């Protein structure tokens, strides 16, 4: 684990930001609005994105000299949690978490000066293309190749499950440097010749793409990193952390919804909360949520103090969040009964988002295997 001076927001600024996010979710993200946004071609609202920019949310992780708030990913945990509560669709995660993280670590100052202010202004949505069909969830297992030709690189390969791929105006792509035991990261603006996208939706209504590139020429100006292993690993860790924070928000909401339902729904002439078995399920949901939150808080503290999170803690967090997401999701449906299986109710949509989160960035199986291997 690296230790370095960590810039974080002051608690006051952080609280103010989270407050504004919570207000936004409460006022703009009722279930029906969310449903029509998800069904729209774009899949999110450009108006919202502008609002995000105005309210400073897109500036959080960037340094002050580029117009950022000089905060860190630990400052975004509460934001992610609010987004999770509202099932927010805007491509914040791909741009402000995945891509911002690798950009921040880049030494290509010119590129950063070009891109980061645009992100902050809400003018640039990015996607990080790291995963491949054969990578088995490991960001260091890369088959795409970058061959050096004079000052440029020729990139060939295929990336899968590129989050926000259809919405992104630029991609950061990982590739093996030909002839070297190292990975590079390259910036591909959306109109780059030789790049093809196959767009689709995930079951949670978000968008993703398969990104193919064949002999695509990238100039030196668009090289993000030629030494990207550490960057990819540490960004994988903080991305997992924030994905789990989002899951916490979604689970919290789903538990609340389910507990409330047991108080109003009647069967056999009584509210179903009067059935001990259901009450104890609620208790178990509450316990698994709380223990997951304690682990998340532990990671937030580490990130805030040291700028990074222990690899085993991250793996444990992803495993535990997956378990919790599955348990809470399944029991929420079970307790709701038939109605929980319908598209009409929000319950199933929370379950789908949680299921997607569990599957992204290496699922529980993958991360448990990581812990196992370290034994």
């Amino acid at each position, binding site marked *: 684990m690296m230790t370095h001076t960590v810039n974080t927001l002051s608690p006051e600024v952080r609280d103010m930001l989270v407050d504004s996010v919570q207000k936004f979710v409460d006022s703009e993200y009722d279930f029906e609005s969310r449903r029509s946004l998800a069904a729209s071609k774009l899949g999110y609202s450009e108006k919202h994105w502008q609002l995000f920019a105005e309210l400073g949310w897109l500036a959080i992780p960037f340094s002050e000299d580029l117009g950022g708030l000089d905060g860190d990913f630990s400052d975004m945990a509460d934001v992610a949690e609010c987004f999770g509560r509202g099932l927010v669709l805007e491509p914040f995660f791909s741009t402000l978490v995945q891509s911002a993280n690798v950009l921040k670590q880049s030494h290509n100052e010119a590129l950063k000066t070009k891109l980061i202010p645009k992100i902050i202004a809400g003018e640039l949505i990015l996607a990080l293309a790291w*995963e491949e*069909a*054969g*990578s*088995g*969830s*490991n960001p260091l*297992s890369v088959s795409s190749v970058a061959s050096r030709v004079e000052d440029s690189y020729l990139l060939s390969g295929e990336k*899968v*499950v590129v989050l926000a791929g259809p919405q992104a105006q630029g991609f950061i792509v990982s590739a093996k440097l030909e002839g070297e035991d190292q990975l590079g990261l390259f910036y591909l603006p959306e109109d780059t010749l030789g790049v093809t996208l*196959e767009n*689709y*939706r*995930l*079951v*949670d*209504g978000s968008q*993703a793409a*398969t990104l193919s590139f064949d002999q695509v020429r990238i100039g030196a100006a668009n090289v993000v990193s030629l030494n990207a292993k550490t960057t990819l690993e540490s960004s994988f860790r903080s991305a997992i952390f924030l994905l789990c924070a989002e899951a916490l928000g979604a689970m919290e909401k789903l538990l609340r919804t389910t507990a409330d339902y047991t108080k109003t729904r*009647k*069967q*056999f*002439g009584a509210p179903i909360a009067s*059935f001990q*078995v*259901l009450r104890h399920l609620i208790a178990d949901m509450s316990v698994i949520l709380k223990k997951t939150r304690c682990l998340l808080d532990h990671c937030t503290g580490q990130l805030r103090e040291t700028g990074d999170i222990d690899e085993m803690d991250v793996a444990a967090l992803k495993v535990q969040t997956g378990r919790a997401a*599955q348990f809470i999701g*399944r029991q929420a*449906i*079970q307790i709701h*009964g*038939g109605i*929980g*299986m*319908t*598209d*009409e109710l929000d319950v*199933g949509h929370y*379950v*789908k988002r949680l*299921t*997607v989160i569990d*599957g*992204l960035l*290496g*699922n*529980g*199986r*993958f991360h448990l*295997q990581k812990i*196992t291997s370290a034994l």
Partner: protein
Amino acid sequence: MADSSVGSLSTAELDRFRLEVADFLDNHVPDEVWEGVDKTTSYFPPFSAIMTMHKLLATKGWSVVGWPEEYGGPAWDEDQRHVFWEEYCKRGLPLMVPQSVNMVAPAIMQFGTREQKSKYLPGIISGEHSWCQGYSEPNAGSDLVALQCKAESDGDDYVITGQKIWTTWAFEVDHMFLLVRTSNEGRPQQGITFLLLDSMELPGMEVRPIIGLDGFPEQAEVFFNQVRVPKSQILGEHDKGWSVAKYLLEHERSGGGNGQFILKREIDWLMTLAAEVDDGAGGQLADDAVFKNKVAQLLVDLRCLAASENYLRKIGPHHQEAAQMASMIKLESMDLTQHVAELALEVCGSFALADQYDALKMGSTARPIGPASMLTVMAKYLNHRACSIYGGSHQVQREILSKMELMK
């Protein structure tokens, strides 16, 4: 219902029979049905695939293999039926609409007038008609006797007003059987009448499909606004529908015992999936010790399920243990179904996250997103959550089972 004269065929005869069934299924089933097999994501395969298959089986006299011969079932013994279902289910072929073949039909055989039998049974055998079941209501799910949908007597007719919900395929079928309240006197079980409807488009009827988590409708709400039905459509007697419903429930217990074959196929599929996924360390997940250990546990459960289903088949549906066995098999087979779907999702990881709606539509030529073998993984995972809810939720089954145990 089926006589249980076990073992009347020699082994050689039974083997010949197996070959005959296998040959027919391998060589005469049309592509549309196989498409339905590939696109099955819940307990129910796509409706059109079922009905195509039903009509095909009818040409062989095999569409209602559980029925007594006198009503049109084939002259098979218990072993033949077992062999037939094994061959049928191991190919993943669609089971007939249970509401038609296994629910309303036996009830008609037991309680129907001569007219009702000759009016309804032939259409079920041929596949010309299909049925849906109108039991559940918004406030009468697990607690069925709370049902409110009422039928008021008006001369020779009933006038039905109210609502049904969770009616599987109400928007596909052409007949409906339902329970209505005809009296509020006495215990709530009394005053319920069992009715047969000849159409889903009677004046005053409205069917609204319910979209499921996978984006497809399977169930529906059915609204009744002063729907007129002649009293000749009663099955059994006025106010005595509960005994028909109870008979039907007991009858269902004979169940078929096909879960073992269906789940065997699902576990095989799981192994296929794992052979397509890299374990991230240079191998395939199919060779991963932890994955294989999980499969081994599922196989132990499968052996238990097979033994349980075979035991119930042996003792028959009227044995004193049959009710307990049926509840237990419901619990166990549904748990196993869910566990297989969960493990499939775990195996596929991020490859299973795409919305495959377009590719899953029957007749669609849209390509699956990602590996074709994983087309149904997510939809199955989501849809199978209903396994512990429908047909008597897990909680209801446990309540029943504990009562039986505590009465011993």
